[in-house]
């Protein structure tokens, strides 16, 4: 087969903060995880597996962040998830009955939900709830490239200690090995946030490539010869791929983006609010407050009030997703055709998205992805999907430049994670970080209970560092919860620190923390030791 005119490097970033509350029978924020499994992770897995079984070749990269991997392999959360899924199935079955007296569109939609949820259950049951093994299999086939992320999605440029940045990377790499049986080749920097020196840490941990927002490449020094359409090597020897804005806007733009199409499902019109309270009550949380259930019967319709939304028609929405996939591909063909005139090598278009966009918020997103990968194989030969490492192998020579310190957040730098709503966290995070490094240095070979204390201190610091908390404080959603998580983990860290300093190594207290903040079972606190 002849070489294509250009390549598409498609990357989905799948991440959720570590939310696990065994101390409560029912916890609202755990829903983020349960909803994402049903609406995003399993549907994406399902389409990729179907493509694989039909021998349709594709190359896709996904970051599965360490907190997400730890939640997906946690028995308590997965048991709770499966119970939630049973309830959802029960509701979907009732809905099929309830909609019998309603117009056909409602019946078709109710049947669609039931079918989807049954399929999810089938997949989850078939692997005994161990979804990561299915993702791993796709990686082992060479179709999916799974990359890692900061251990808890910590925001590296706002860490002032080299040791803390290094620990985020090192612990992530060790955890990846546990799930996927080999070290990661690439990393998604938390929030695509880069600061000089981060590349050296990546390199020493065996990471070969990462991604930056477009200005992270465009503003690098010296000026990048190919814009974002070829990677750069940083001075530390890591390849950085820049995000293509054209494909970003096609999906993200509030006005022209695909997800706003009038045929697509309306996110805000949910039976959790629409139906009789007594009917819906068994599917709500313990507090009985009406919330989204995930079952929605209306389409975006247009700029109209929620009450004026029209019924969703699944077949029409699927057709729209297919036509958007066609449009996306058509635009890529034009894009590479144009680009190759100003480049003397095949252009590479790097498209990166939040994975949770597909399925949860853009309900038809997985259908779009499915259609796109099929069309790329069957309908044309100008553009091919490619993994970062394969591209680097094919085109080993790249310009060396220092990337611009940047992030993919609003305004492109660090303000989302550093502003009046959240700057109070940093004095605490930095003190905790300094003290953790101190502990690791003065106890180079701890054993027994002391070792467990130090490991737990590392877990608490890592959890406090999740960029999600500062993010949620900025956007004002779940603010109370994110402030509390910051206070709790820093507080627990300080408590552990004082007990170690005062040699009060109470095992009961330790066991309690180990049972609630239990991620990284194999963590080694020595990741925080200073380089000698």
């Amino acid at each position, binding site marked *: 087969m002849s070489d294509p005119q250009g390549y598409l490097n498609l990357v989905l970033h799948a*991440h959720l903060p570590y939310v696990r509350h065994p101390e409560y029978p029912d916890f609202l924020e755990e829903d983020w995880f349960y909803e994402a499994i049903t609406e995003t992770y399993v549907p994406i897995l399902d389409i990729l597996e179907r493509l694989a079984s039909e021998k349709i070749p594709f190359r896709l990269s996904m970051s599965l962040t360490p907190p997400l991997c730890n939640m997906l392999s946690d028995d308590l959360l997965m048991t709770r998830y499966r119970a939630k899924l049973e309830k959802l199935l029960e509701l979907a079955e009732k809905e099929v009955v309830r909609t019998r007296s309603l117009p056909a569109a409602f019946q078709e939609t109710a049947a669609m939900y039931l079918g989807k949820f049954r399929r999810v259950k089938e997949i989850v049951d078939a692997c005994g709830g161990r979804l990561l093994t299915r993702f791993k299999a796709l990686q082992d086939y060479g179709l999916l490239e799974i990359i890692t992320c900061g251990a808890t999605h910590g925001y590296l440029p706002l860490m002032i200690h080299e040791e803390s940045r290094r620990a985020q990377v090192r612990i992530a790499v060790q955890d990846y090995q546990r799930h996927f049986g080999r070290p990661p080749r690439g990393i998604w920097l938390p929030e695509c946030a880069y600061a000089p020196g981060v590349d050296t840490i990546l390199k020493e941990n065996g990471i070969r490539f990462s991604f930056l927002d477009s200005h992270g490449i465009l503003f690098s020094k010296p000026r990048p010869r190919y814009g974002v359409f070829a990677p750069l090597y940083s001075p530390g020897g890591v390849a950085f791929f820049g995000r293509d804005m054209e494909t970003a806007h096609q999906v993200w733009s509030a006005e022209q983006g695909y997800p706003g199409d009038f045929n697509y499902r309306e996110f805000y019109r949910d039976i959790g609010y*629409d139906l009789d309270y007594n009917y819906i009550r068994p599917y709500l949380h313990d507090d009985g407050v009406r919330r*989204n259930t995930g079952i929605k019967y209306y389409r975006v319709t247009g700029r109209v009030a929620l009450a004026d939304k029209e019924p969703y028609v699944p077949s029409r929405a699927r057709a729209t997703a297919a036509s958007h996939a066609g449009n996306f591909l058509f635009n890529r063909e034009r894009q590479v055709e144009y680009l190759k005139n100003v480049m003397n090598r095949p252009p590479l278009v790097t498209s990166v998205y939040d994975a949770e966009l597909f399925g949860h918020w853009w309900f038809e997103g997985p259908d779009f992805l499915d259609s796109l990968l099929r069309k790329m194989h069957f309908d044309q030969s100008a553009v091919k999907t490619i993994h970062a490492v394969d591209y680097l192998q094919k085109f080993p020579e790249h310009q060396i430049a220092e990337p*611009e310190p940047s992030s993919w957040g609003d305004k*492109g*730098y660090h303000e989302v994670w550093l502003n009046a709503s959240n700057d109070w966290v940093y004095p605490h995070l930095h003190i905790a970080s300094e003290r953790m490094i101190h502990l690791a240095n003065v106890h180079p070979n701890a054993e027994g209970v002391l070792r467990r204390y130090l490991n737990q201190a590392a877990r608490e610091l890592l959890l406090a560092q999740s960029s999600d908390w500062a993010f949620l404080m900025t956007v004002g959603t779940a603010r109370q919860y994110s402030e509390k998580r910051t206070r709790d983990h820093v507080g627990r860290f300080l408590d552990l620190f004082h007990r170690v300093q005062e040699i009060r190594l109470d095992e009961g207290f330790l066991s309690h923390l180990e049972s609630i903040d239990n991620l990284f079972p194999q963590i080694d606190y020595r990741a925080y030791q200073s380089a000698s």
Partner: protein
Amino acid sequence: MTSHVNAPSSGSAPRPVSPASAGPLPKEYGVTRLVILPRDPRWIHAYWEVAPYTWDEARKQFGDMLKQGRSVLRVHSSRSGKSGFFDVDVRVDARNWYVHSPEPDGDWHAELGLVLPDGRFVLLAISNRIRLPAGQVSDITDERWGVLQADWERLFELSGGGRLGAGSLDVVKILAQRWELLRNVSSASLIPTSPGGASWGRMPSLKKEKGFWLVADTEVIVYGATEPDASLTFQGHPVALNPDGTFSFRFSLPDGEQVFPIHATHRDGDLSRSIEFRVTRRSHKSE
């Protein structure tokens, strides 16, 4: 994770304090320190703490002169071999500050101290070092990777030309924008009407009248939950909770303003919470 941040329609439910919650964090740590963080090409965030031992040390050295000192953040930059500094007046007890940088790029650090009337600088704390982003395309070109200016400009434009940000925050923004849109176009209730038998869609009792007729009425449901063993009053009257602590009342809603005060008291009688709703109905009939 960002797309899971459901916009204003679903917030985080307040939860009781976790068993291992450590309460408020320390206001200070008894350590003298100054930290600077890059926010963007033009802004630096600084925070600091000056511990008593540092003040003692300074007083020992400078005595009463200290009181006449002007407290400043002295911000140093070094860029392409040129270095310099500027002072920003700050109150030491402000504890943090956003400093506007006259230029982007370069390496930065800062000192917190007092400028004495004789010009001497009393150093209280010195910061870490940071690099500020450039915020623009570099002037430096790479001979080995030469390109025609016109071609480069084209590539730059095609690369997005520095249009920034369509990342995490944007999902939330888009969701919020759509929610706002829905609010704006919906002059009536935000609560969606139902296609299939919502409680407020139930037919009211019919009263036959001569000729053509229409009857309509409204109902309101008040619901919630508290600790199952709490005592609850609704409009001043005690009511029984469901075994799981939930309660739900459905009322007809006549014209005028209705007040629904709800008051819950802990079984020990020492803690209580109140919520009150005021609901107004205005009917308009036309023949």
